Structures are given as C-alpha cells and as structure tokens.
C-alpha cells in the first residue's frame, strides 16, 4: 500500500501544491497540445485531398491541369504518411515522457523541433501545391523536384531529432537520479520508439544528401537503385513508428477507459524492443520486384519481416488479457459478454477499439504482401493502397483520433465538445474504411494499378472490371472524409466553445498489473538494444548496398516528367 506521504516523495509522482512543478507541467501540456492540434489541422487538409483523389479515380470529377491529380496525390501522401502521423507521435511521446517523469523542465528544445518541422512542412507543401514536386511521397529519382521540396522534407525529419533529443535527455536525467528504478513504462516506450526513429531516419538523410546537390544542379546524375534502397531503409520503419505510437496508446492509455491495467511491465518492454530490432532490417520487402537485388537478400528480409509475428502476438495477448482481467474483477465473464461490456460508447475507447479490429485485417493483408510468391500478384496494385489504408489509415489514425478525444480535454482543461459527435466521427471512419479498403483490395486482385489518375485505359477490355471498385472506394472515402471533418470540428470546438475547468480532467497512464514483479534489468539497457538494432540493420543492408555500388557506374540525369 502506498500512503499519500510516500506518494509525495516518490520520484514517479507529481508533487501537489508545488507552484514551480505546476507551472512546468502546464507549459508541457501547452506544448503537447500544440503538436496535437498541428496534427489535427494536417489530417483535415490531407483528408480533403484524399477525397478529391477518390472522386477523380471514380471519374466523378476531372482535376484541372492547374491542380492535377498527381499533385494532390503527392500532397495527400506526404501530409498523411509523413506529417500528420509524425506530429501526433512527437506530441504523444513528449506527453508520455513528461507525464511519467515529474520534473521542472524547459520546453524550449521541443518547441524548436516543432518549429523546424512546421517550416519544413510548409516548404514541402507549398512546393508540391505549386506543381513543382509532383513526385509522390516516395520521390523516386530520377523524377526531380524543386530543391525546396527536398529541403522541406529534410527539415521535417531534422525537427523530429530535436524532440527525440528532448525525450532522451529527460530519460537520462531520470536514470541519473534514480539508478535503482526502472525507466517509467510510458517514458520507456517513448524513448525506445525515438531510438528506432533515429536509426531509421539515417537512411533518408543519406538519400537527401545525394538528392539535394543533384536537385541544385551541382551533380549530374544519381544511382536510382541506391536512392530507392535508402528510401525503403527508412520507409518500412516509418510504418513501425506509426505502430509503436498506436501501441503506446493500446498498452498504456486504452485500459484506463474500462478501469483496466497494463497486463505486464516486462512484456510491454519486450514488445517495444522487438519492434526496435525488427524495424529496419526488413525494408527490401518493398523491393521484391526490383532488378539488381539478389533473391537471397530479398529472402533474408522476408524472414526478418515475418519476425513481427512475435511482438504482434504478444500485443494481441496483452490487450485481451487486460480486457479479461478488468472484466472479471467486475464479475463479467465469457467472450461475448466481455466484448459487450467494453465501453464502445466512450470515444477514447471506440477509436482504438475499432482500430484494433481493422488491424486484424491489415495483418492478413500484410502476410500476403510479404510472401514474395504472392506479392507478385498484388505489387503496385490497388491491393497495396487498400492495405496501407487499413493499417495506417485504420488502427493508427483511429487510435490517434480516439486518444485525441482524451488528450485534448486533458491538456486544454476543457470538457470534450459534443461527445456523441466524437463517437459518430469514429464509427463513420470505421465504416468508410471497411468499404474503401475492401474495394481497393478487390480492385488490386483484379489487377488495377495504383498511382494512376484514371484506370479506364481507353476502354481496354482488361480494365473493364475496375471502375465499379473505384466508385465503391470513393463512396467509402466520402464517409471517412465526413468523419475527419467531424473530428476537426470536435477537437477545435473543445478548445473554443467550452470554458476552462480548473479541476483538470487529467490523462493518467494505466497502472501496471504486475508492477511489483521483477523485470530483467537487461530490458532497460536501451543503449545495448540500440547497438544491436544498428548491427542488424548493417547486416541486412551491407550486401545489397555493395551490390548496387559495385554493379555499374551509370547515373541517371534528373527529369521533370509532369
């Protein structure tokens, strides 16, 4: 039993009635709120462009030349995949760290990071919208965008490093003062995710060091395959960055909505460490059909990719165990009784809960993509678009939205505006995503290519079956767009409409069920795990990169084909 006197002196509790702590905490809350609202705004804008894409592919509208399909496709991809997710995660991880490490702290470094990210985003977005960077979010060379696009994207990434540094320094500060204590679980998850992110972004940074001088005309050509490989060195861990953000909420926040707890401290740490290790040495599964990479290396990446089965199964177990333990404590037993007992009418649960359902579908699709025998049937088809919408656009985005419905009121100290509307936004998104991603997967099985403005191919017989799926996808997409609109309205109105409440409806993280159980100290040795992750990435890429560099010396000149 912890007495209140103990709590006051514990390094894990915020001291009450201490003005400097209270002031510091308020500054931190405002900072996190800034990240979350930036993500909200970006999601709203990104969804608008997403809807236009769907309408265009369904042949409901034709985008004019001055605002063509590929421009909005690029801006949608960049804003959703790189900007919305990143701002939400930097905010969430900052909160996880600040909340679990009570400290009078400076928030300056984190604001610098946020500002650099905003400048980068604006630079890239304006360049794309002006038509000077219709290179899609993968920006494969030798498509050559304006240098401002590459500068903007680099600044966006560089900004996140400031935030990573802030989080790491807070954890180091805690560990120096409390060497006998474990890193608090939320801060552990945050710092583990950020270490993964730093290792991953090294790849895209090297790519930018090649692309920027070339886009400025200082070099005459680039090795196309090498830049593709560097992109996917970053591109797959980017996916796990989203997942780890969602896992922070699934493990640590969602249980608070049904009076539950974190199933296991040690296993949660192990799941995050597994994702850290398995995030980078898997990127070549995006390049199964590429020339110049030997089948042996492709197979090596396949095996490591399937390794994600381990943290995924651990997470599924932990979530269901947390549900069941809490339900049993309230006398609820039996699978369907527990399912019904869960708070599906609480927006903070419904978003992540519906997201978990979609993640099951996403997992099945992912198994197909990673099996290179089957990948050949779906590679670069609409199947892949369906897959990433039912993963990042499903579990991840719905989890973030649900968490925002809890975080925003807690940080802004206001009541959630129109909770019923919040709930509607999530169920609309869920229904829309089911329809849209199902149609996209189906279109992919029928062979419809992704990334084209129009799939009619002048009425070719082979393309005749695709149009109906595109119409269904546009209908589903419309539901999602309405859901996003409601989310933006609720999130904004929460701040503008409701009055500030002094008794802070705070967002605490769930307590740990087995907090007293011993945890192997090696799990907290993040430096060792980071070193191991780097070694794995090196082993996975040294062969393929050498193959690229020694194969030939042909460099492709840049082209603007749009």
């Amino acid at each position, binding site marked *: 039993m912890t007495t209140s006197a103990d709590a006051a002196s514990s390094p894990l509790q915020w001291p009450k009635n201490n003005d400097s702590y209270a002031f510091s905490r308020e500054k931190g809350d405002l900072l996190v709120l800034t990240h979350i609202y930036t993500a909200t705004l970006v999601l709203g804008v990104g969804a608008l462009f997403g809807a236009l894409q769907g309408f265009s592919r369904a042949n409901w509208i034709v985008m004019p030349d001055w605002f063509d399909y*590929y421009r909005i*496709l690029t801006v949608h991809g960049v804003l959703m995949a790189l900007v919305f997710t990143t701002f939400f995660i930097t905010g969430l991880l900052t909160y996880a760290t600040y909340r679990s490490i009570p400290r009078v702290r400076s928030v300056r470094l984190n604001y610098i990071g946020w500002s650099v990210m905003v400048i980068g985003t604006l630079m890239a977005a304006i360049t794309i919208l002006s038509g000077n960077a*219709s290179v*899609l979010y993968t920006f*494969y060379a*030798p*498509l050559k965008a304006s240098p401002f696009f590459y500068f903007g994207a680099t600044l966006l990434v560089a900004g996140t490093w400031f935030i990573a540094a802030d989080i790491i320094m807070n954890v180091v500060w805690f560990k120096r003062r409390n060497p006998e204590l474990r890193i608090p679980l939320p801060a552990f998850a945050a710092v583990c995710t950020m270490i993964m992110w730093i290792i991953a972004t090294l790849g895209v940074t090297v790519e930018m060091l090649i692309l920027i001088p070339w886009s400025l005309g200082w070099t005459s050509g680039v090795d*196309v*395959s090498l830049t*593709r490989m560097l992109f996917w060195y970053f591109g797959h861990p980017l996916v796990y960055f989203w997942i780890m953000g969602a896992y922070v909420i699934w493990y640590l926040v969602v249980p608070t909505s049904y009076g539950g707890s974190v199933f296991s401290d*040690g296993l949660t740490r192990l799941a995050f460490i597994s994702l850290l290790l398995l995030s980078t040495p898997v990127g070549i599964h995006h390049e*199964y*059909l590429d*020339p*110049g*990479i*030997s*089948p042996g290396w*492709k197979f090596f990446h*396949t*095996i490591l990719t*399937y*390794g994600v089965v*381990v943290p*995924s*199964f*651990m997470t599924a177990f932990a979530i269901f165990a947390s549900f069941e333990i809490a339900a049993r404590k309230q006398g609820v037993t039996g699978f369907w009784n527990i399912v019904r007992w869960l708070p599906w009418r609480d927006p903070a649960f419904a978003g992540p809960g519906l997201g978990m359902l979609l993640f099951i579908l996403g997992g099945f699709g992912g198994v197909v993509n990673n*099996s*290179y*025998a089957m990948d*050949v*049937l779906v*590679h*670069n088809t609409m199947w892949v678009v369906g897959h990433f919408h039912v993963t990042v656009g499903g579990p991840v985005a719905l989890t973030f939205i649900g968490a925002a419905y809890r975080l925003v009121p807690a940080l802004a100290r206001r009541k959630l505006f129109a909770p019923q509307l919040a709930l509607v936004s999530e169920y609309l998104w869920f229904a829309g995503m089911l329809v849209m991603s199902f149609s996209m997967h189906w279109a992919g099985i*029928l*062979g*419809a*290519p*992704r*990334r*084209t*403005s*129009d*799939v009619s*191919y*002048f009425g070719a*017989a*082979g*393309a005749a079956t695709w149009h109906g799926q595109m119409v269904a996808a546009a209908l589903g997409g419309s539901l999602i767009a309405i859901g996003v609109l409601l989310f933006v309205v609720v999130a904004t109105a929460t701040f503008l409409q409701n009055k500030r409440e002094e008794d802070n409806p705070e967002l605490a993280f769930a307590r740990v069920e087995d907090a007293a*159980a*011993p*945890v192997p100290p090696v*799990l907290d040795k993040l430096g060792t795990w980071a070193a191991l992750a780097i070694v794995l990435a090196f082993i996975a890429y040294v062969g393929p990169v050498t193959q690229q560099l020694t*194969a*030939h010396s*042909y460099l*492709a000149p840049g*082209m603007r*084909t*749009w």
Partner: protein
Amino acid sequence: MHIHRYEKLWLSIGLVILAFFIATLSIAALSEGFVPPSDDQSIDPTKVAQTPPFDHPGLRKVGDHAYEAYYVAHIFAFDPATITVPVGSRVTFYVTSTDVEHGFSIPATAVNMMVTPGWVNSLSHTFKEAGTFLLVCNEYCGAGHQTMAAKVVVQ
C-alpha cells in the same frame, strides 16, 4: 520475468505459423525455382537505343513455343506497343527504361516487375489462354502515366 502459461502457448502458436510461412516460401524457391524477378544485368540508360538487343525492341522466336520479348519503357509508352504470340507460348520479357522508374505489369497475372533506369529486368510467363492482354506501367512516371500501356495478343 514471469510469462503466463497461456501466453507461452499462444506465442508458440505464433512461432509455428512463422515457421510455416518461411518453410512454404523456401520450398517454393528451392524446389520450384520460384524467385521474384531480380535480373542483375546493367545498361547505360542514356545509351539504350545503341545497345543491342534494345536497339531493336520486339519479339524473337527462340524455340518451339518459346519467345523472348525485348521492351523499352519510356515516358509514356512501351516499345513494342503490341506483340502477338500463339496460345501456349512461354515468353521471357526483358525490359529497361531510358528515363525514369516504370512498372511492367499484365494485370491479374504473375507478370509484374519494376523497371529501373540502369538495369534490365526480366521474367518468364506461359500464356495458356487466348485473349488480348493489357500491359500497363504500374509505377508513377509522370503526367501521362495513366496512358502508358501496351497489348499482348495471344491467339
């Protein structure tokens, strides 16, 4: 660290599934020779028009029901635009790009590969049914990407 008995069981199921996936792919690769298109011939993308056999793209008969088809992908077309082969032909497609990244895909078949400037990629496919197959570029290559297509006629 305590790991619950059920969790051990559950993770074992996961590991068995993992082993099954890897075994399936290994058997396909080793006994049936199924590997994804991974050709490693390089070519200067600026000199494709002078480099045989891509200086004369098109179909070559190399045996009974066996063909080689050499394609040049460029914005926004494939050269040749149409090839015609008899039913039951095994065609090996060789393709390279003179400009940007392209895709080479006959929808709803296993003909699907990336076309990267600087490299030749290749794969083989047997056409068992008659028909006119659409061949599309499935990697974004520019403003006319949605028009980049060709035909494979099987008769």
